[in-house]
């Protein structure tokens, strides 16, 4: 063997991780004629043959055995609730399901496609302006995005058009539109497709919420409600409401995904190359530590190779981005003891809650008819649409119901108190299947000094690198939010006419657990901001310390909101592509000086 890994021919740009973020940038940069290589740790996938029916409608394979999800045997993370504990590895998938393979989580997402609210981009200044600084708990690292909704609006629009999002505008150029989300920021245009056909539980929800004085609307869904051709000329089939959506690939390309949109378009560019089954181990820096020289990766055969590049764009999942930064020495690692350093700081998640609701015997919800993002929602208690001082917490949550699939390994509800097995269980499951639904909450989580990511001192991945270590728990602010949201959901469920309503969380304030699935909406750890003392990246997602490294994804969000993160991830991806094309590539160097 030679002494070091072989160095390949230099390229202009390396992209690490090929989901929505990497795919959009790769496609948008084709016009630069620069040589681009995208690394993806997983396998290449295409609708045909990988996602074709009937094989894709395999609940065990995709929902239980997690075919499209990160394989923990190769990489995982360690977890503890607080810094006094010893972190232990996440040995089985549970709380969240990061994607793996070309298309990333875009292949298996549900398709809830939001623009974040104006306040959700300005949580610190928006909160202080209304309530003063005192309302912010001492351990909360509340901070603003360095860009606002209005600057992102054109990028939000582009991403919706790319995805064929189905929905109804609630704020067209400042004019509030009944039936849409009247709390959203002003939009220049309507959604590209009309809303999906509502399920019965959605109809009950919409009427109940309206009767209660709330403002229900259809969830913006990147499940095409009709045949659609996007501005790039990519054809979408109309959604079949087949009920195999979240966790699955879509056989008719109704669920927007990078694997059939931006990635094939990027691949038409002869200067673009995808290296799948290739894991980037680290970003290499020059002797000053101020400039990246490329990446070292392991290919499918296990060869360690060096790919020199002028620009490195990290667009892996939240954990991959932060792990690579920490492992490569890009930016100062966060130090919990002193609340200094930035990489790994402001890790956040989302808090659930809500209720299950049992209706009378002649109710037929047909839970097997649906799609990943088929739902009705209210934002009346989300964002800053309630009084934080009165509620006792900062942030909010959406309340919703939907019909997202009824495959029975995962969906065989029974009322709480039912035995878990035996004839009584069986009878209850049969009796309940058609008349049970949920009203759920998706709640924001703020960022805290004691919730962060760093490198684990003990455990290593299959490549010999230290695992990322997560330290996270619910805080008082989030417990209060969950309690309030559960009460809101219960109120709506009762107004829907439910016979019985059951809180999904008990009265006890349990610690966060890594074991049960909750949501794959992890955020932070490499946040962008205006102050290098509290952010790893500047407003252009550029590392403050290594100016030819850009870090793209929900890892940039300073805290989490009560809605799905994919919309702003897509918008930021378009914006970064513009920044690179119009600015950075013409004049490489730091884009922000402080």
């Amino acid at each position, binding site marked *: 063997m030679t002494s070091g890994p072989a160095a390949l021919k230099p390229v202009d740009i390396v992209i690490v991780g090929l989901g929505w973020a990497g795919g959009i940038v790769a496609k948008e940069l084709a016009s630069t004629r620069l040589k681009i290589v995208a690394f993806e740790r997983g396998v290449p996938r295409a609708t045909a043959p990988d996602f074709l*029916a009937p094989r894709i409608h395999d609940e065990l394979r995709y929902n239980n055995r997690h075919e499209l999800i990160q394989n923990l045997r190769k990489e995982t993370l360690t977890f503890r*609730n607080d810094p006094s504990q010893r972190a232990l*590895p996440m040995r089985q998938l549970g709380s969240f399901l990061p994607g793996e393979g070309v298309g990333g989580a875009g292949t298996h997402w549900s398709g809830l496609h939001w623009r974040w609210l104006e306040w959700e981009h300005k949580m610190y200044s928006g909160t202080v302006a209304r309530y003063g600084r005192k309302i912010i708990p001492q351990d909360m690292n509340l901070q603003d995005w360095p860009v606002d909704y209005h600057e992102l609006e054109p990028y939000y629009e582009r991403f919706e058009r790319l995805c064929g999002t189905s929905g109804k505008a609630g704020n067209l150029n400042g004019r509030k539109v009944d039936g849409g989300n009247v709390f959203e920021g002003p939009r220049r245009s309507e959604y590209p497709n009309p809303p999906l056909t509502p399920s019965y539980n959605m109809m009950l929800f919409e009427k109940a919420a309206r009767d209660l004085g709330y403002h229900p609307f259809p969830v913006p869904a990147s499940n095409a409600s009709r045949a659609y051709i996007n501005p790039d000329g990519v054809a979408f089939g109309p959604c079949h*409401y087949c009920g*195999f959506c979240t966790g699955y690939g879509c056989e008719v390309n109704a669920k927007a995904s990078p694997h059939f949109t931006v990635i094939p378009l990027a691949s038409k560019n002869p200067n673009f190359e995808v290296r799948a089954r290739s894991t980037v181990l680290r970003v290499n820096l020059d002797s000053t530590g101020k400039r990246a020289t490329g990446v070292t990766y392991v290919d499918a055969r296990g060869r360690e190779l060096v790919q020199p590049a002028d620009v490195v764009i990290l667009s892996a999942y939240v954990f991959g981005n932060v792990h690579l930064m920490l492992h490569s020495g890009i930016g100062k690692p966060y130090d919990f003891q002193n609340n200094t350093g930035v990489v790994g700081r402001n890790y956040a998640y989302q808090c659930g809650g809500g209720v299950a609701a049992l209706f009378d015997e002649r109710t037929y919800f047909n839970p097997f008819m649906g799609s990943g993002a088929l739902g009705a929602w209210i934002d009346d208690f989300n964002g800053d649409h309630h009084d934080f001082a009165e509620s006792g917490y900062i942030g909010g949550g959406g309340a919703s119901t939907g019909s997202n699939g009824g*495959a029975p*390994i995962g969906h065989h509800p029974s009322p709480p108190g039912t035995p*878990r097995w035996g004839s009584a269980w069986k009878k209850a499951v049969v009796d309940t299947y058609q008349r049970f639904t949920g009203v759920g909450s998706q709640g924001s989580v703020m960022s805290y000094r004691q919730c962060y990511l760093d490198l684990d001192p003990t455990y290593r991945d299959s490549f010999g690198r230290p695992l990322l270590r997560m330290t996270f728990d619910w805080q008082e602010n989030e417990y209060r939010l969950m309690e309030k949201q559960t009460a809101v959901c219960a109120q709506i469920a009762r107004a829907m006419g439910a016979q019985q309503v059951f809180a999904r969380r008990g009265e006890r304030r349990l610690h966060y657990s890594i074991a049960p699935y909750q949501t794959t909406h992890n955020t932070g750890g490499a946040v962008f901001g205006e102050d290098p003392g509290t952010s790893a990246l500047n407003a252009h997602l550029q590392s403050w310390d290594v100016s030819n490294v850009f870090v793209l994804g929900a890892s940039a969000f300073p805290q989490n909101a009560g809605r799905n993160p994919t919309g702003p991830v897509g918008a930021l991806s378009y914006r970064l592509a513009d920044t690179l094309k119009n600015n950075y590539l013409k004049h490489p160097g730091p884009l922000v000086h402080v």
Partner: protein
Amino acid sequence: MSDSDQHKPRRLARRSLLKMAAAGAAAGSLPFAGAQPMEGMTTPAKQAGPGHCDSAPAVYTFLNSQEVAFLEAAVATLIPADELGPGALELGAVVFIDRQLGGDYGRGDRMYLQGPFAEGTAEQGYQLRMTPAELVQAGIADVQAHTSGKYQRRFEELSAQERAAVLSGLETHQVSLPTVPGELFFGVLLELTQQGFFCDPIYGGNRGKASWKLLGFPGIGAMYADRIAPFSNQLYVSEPVSIEDLL
């Protein structure tokens, strides 16, 4: 949705056997459960592993005969045959578990199993060094040792009430096992039994799609774009379709 014609001759041959096996099983208290024609019953044999077919006793490729005997008794206790229809045993849940434990899942193919190992908190999740197959096999041996001590009989030799008492003891931490945490073993056993009961028949369980008929789940083949509105709060009844039916 109907079965494709090319499969019919082969399926007919299995039907008479299945009719006997499932006699009395499909009638239930639900209006639609009894309405499903027996002719729709199908079996997983086409996709089965080596040597397996429905006209012969199940052939197990991974578990030994004592483990199978335990599991047959356990799954029949967890999801019994009753007036609603067949239970997990009749639907092939043990065949399902055998194949799962002998495959990638049983080997922990997607798990992180590197040391060091420590107990951890409940919130930190699974921390044993055992794969699912190792856990189930060790758990079975543990329970057999427990019943041999307490009842002087193997688990499968116990009365229905005694079996239920043993499983309930595991579930509620009343019975502790020497190797495997009892409630963890119980949880995995229950999860696998439910998967074998509800899975697509391609995996060896849910024979004849019987659990889908029982629930009113129409299977995996339907397109509902033109049905979701007309069937709003209307019972939708359809002969369930499995993966195999559409291949």
